[in-house]
């Protein structure tokens, strides 16, 4: 394969990471918590589409819609039941561990319903591949849709935060929950909305992830979830453009490492680059460096 083709697969993988990372970064920026269950919401989204489309035989659109609706509800429920009671806990680690518990829970629910066998996920994209340069370079339909979806969603999120009242409320909550409350902002509602949006994004990311890489089992979401977390950190956690660029970069680095160095070493290389970047820029590419006032 040519360099350009690798670049394209990198972009494709990267835009999946970017999609997941956008959800991660929103939740982190506003609720200030690492939602370790985010990757598993992705998996639930993919399973929902799988059930609706492959098992029940309904049209693709219905499957995607069902995934988005279910994941949105799931995200809001998880926040209400498991995270909200711990928002004022003595240590921020409490909610992190609970998120891990939720992650186990989602994996095991899926395990009970769908079993351990890996399912073949039927792609939701019916777009034909575009071949350029006499078939030397191929853009698969999935790649095109994922990249476009990712750009559209990122732009949408940035507009949403800049232009709408709810978006401005999110910014305020992310700066200072107490002050936002005093200004009459519904902090609980804003955080719930953030989880709703983050989880809806996770559903879309899950469907697109499994369309490009069609093997689906209860652990499908874990590694992409961690990678997306890495991508969000690359870009500076909490920054939306940061998550996008971090995701794309991560995908490209991973594919290049697999292609040119060693497929076994790919993950190690990705993580090593992360360490180097953070040592040079301790809060990621676009992260804000807040110095403690003395």
């Amino acid at each position, binding site marked *: 394969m040519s360099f350009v083709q690798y670049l394209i697969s990198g972009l494709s993988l990267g835009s999946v990471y970017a999609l997941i990372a956008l959800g991660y970064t929103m939740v982190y920026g506003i609720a200030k918590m*690492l939602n370790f269950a985010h990757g598993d919401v992705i998996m639930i989204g993919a399973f929902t589409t799988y059930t609706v489309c492959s098992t029940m035989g309904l049209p693709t659109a219905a499957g995607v819609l069902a995934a988005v609706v279910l994941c949105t509800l799931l995200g809001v429920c998880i926040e209400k039941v498991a995270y909200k009671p711990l928002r004022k806990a*003595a*240590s921020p680690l409490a909610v992190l*561990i609970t998120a*891990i518990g939720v992650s186990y829970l989602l994996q*095991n629910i899926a*395990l009970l319903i769908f079993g351990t066998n890996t399912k073949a996920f039927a792609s939701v994209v019916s777009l034909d591949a575009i071949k350029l340069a006499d078939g030397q370079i191929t853009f698969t339909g999935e790649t095109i849709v994922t990249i476009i979806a990712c750009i559209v969603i990122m732009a949408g999120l940035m507009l949403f935060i800049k232009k709408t009242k709810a978006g401005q409320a999110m910014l305020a909550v992310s700066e200072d929950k107490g002050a936002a409350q005093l200004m009459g902002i519904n902090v609980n509602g804003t955080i719930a909305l953030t989880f709703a949006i983050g989880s809806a994004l996770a559903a879309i990311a899950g469907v697109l992830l499994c369309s490009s890489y069609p093997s689906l089992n209860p652990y499908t979401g874990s590694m992409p979830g961690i990678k997306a977390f*890495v991508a969000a950190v690359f870009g500076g956690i909490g920054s939306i453009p940061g998550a996008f660029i971090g995701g794309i970069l991560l995908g490209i680095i991973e594919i290049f490492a697999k292609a040119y160095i060693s497929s076994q070493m790919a*993950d190690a290389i990705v993580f090593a680059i992360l360490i180097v970047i953070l*040592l040079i820029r301790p809060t990621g590419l676009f992260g804000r460096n807040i110095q403690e006032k003395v």
Partner: protein
Amino acid sequence: MRMMAAKIKSNRILRSNLITFGMVIGVYIIVQILVAAGAVSSLVRGLLVPLCTYAILAVSLNLTVGILGELSLGHAGFMCIGAFSSAFFSKCMQDVIPIAGIRFTIAILIGALTAGVFGLLIGIPVLRLKGDYLAIVTLAFGEIAKNIINMLYVGIDESGIHFSTRNSLELNLSENGVVIIQGAQGITGTPNDSSFTVGILLLLITLVVILNLIHSRDGRAIMAIRDNTIAAESVGINITKYKLMAFSISASFAGVAGVLYAHNLSSLSATSKNFGYNMSIMILVFVVLGGIGNIRGSIIAAVVLTLLPELLRGLNDYRMLIYAVVLIAMMLFNWAPSCIRWREKIVYKLKSGKKHAKGAE
């Protein structure tokens, strides 16, 4: 009066430590009696050494998370390094040092030292980072450690040690050479030197070192950094030195746990299950559930959470589901401010109820 108050305080610490030691020794004696009476299933017997391993891991991670106050998600990486370095040594020296006791003691020291050195090497650049950024970097380190060991081939012959990252043929060993680490297959045939008794001994050593460290001059400096780094600096505490001290001691005990783990198995390979980030997270779960900074709690949480899935074995498919629900419920019960208030209210009611009852008498 004042000296008495001081005495009372040091006695309190001493008593708390003694309870922890007593608990470990008590459990050991009871288990030994039960085993002798044949009342322990082979399944639970098989869990005894892993229980010690997890307890050591949890106690050592608590030094980083609870005492130093930094979040590390790479503890399994240090365990991995301890496991492989010591198993490599034991395998090489199996014939040279036939006395298991001596060989295993050296293996433990090697595992602890190697992991400690790595803790130092990783800590120097990384401990400048804060909070979640440190967490992700340590997670990355753990994954790198696992990944590299998975593709490492090491063999030994008369001319020394040979390395390769591709396959065992590339080691160019002579006829008498032996391949010790076989890439993803890892090390097979490590002598089974671990036992429950050794595990308990190592746990006790871990406890002595870490508890005594905490209640010493160095421990105070470490906790001062945790509570307020700027103030600690202003009273002349060397931040880097003490952060590194806590981090590398924590790493070296993770290494010890790795040694125990490696010498309990006939074949050792680095998978995402035993040395991946999932394992690091599992250890963190022990620490947080047991109470951040609470050493005894770490041990209890490690034991309970390791036994729980086994106790639920009868429930088959549902056991891990229940495990997850129990974990979430316990976290909420232990940490949610509303639950804590509710618990206090109940305790208060019970107490005042008792007083009333006494008054009535």
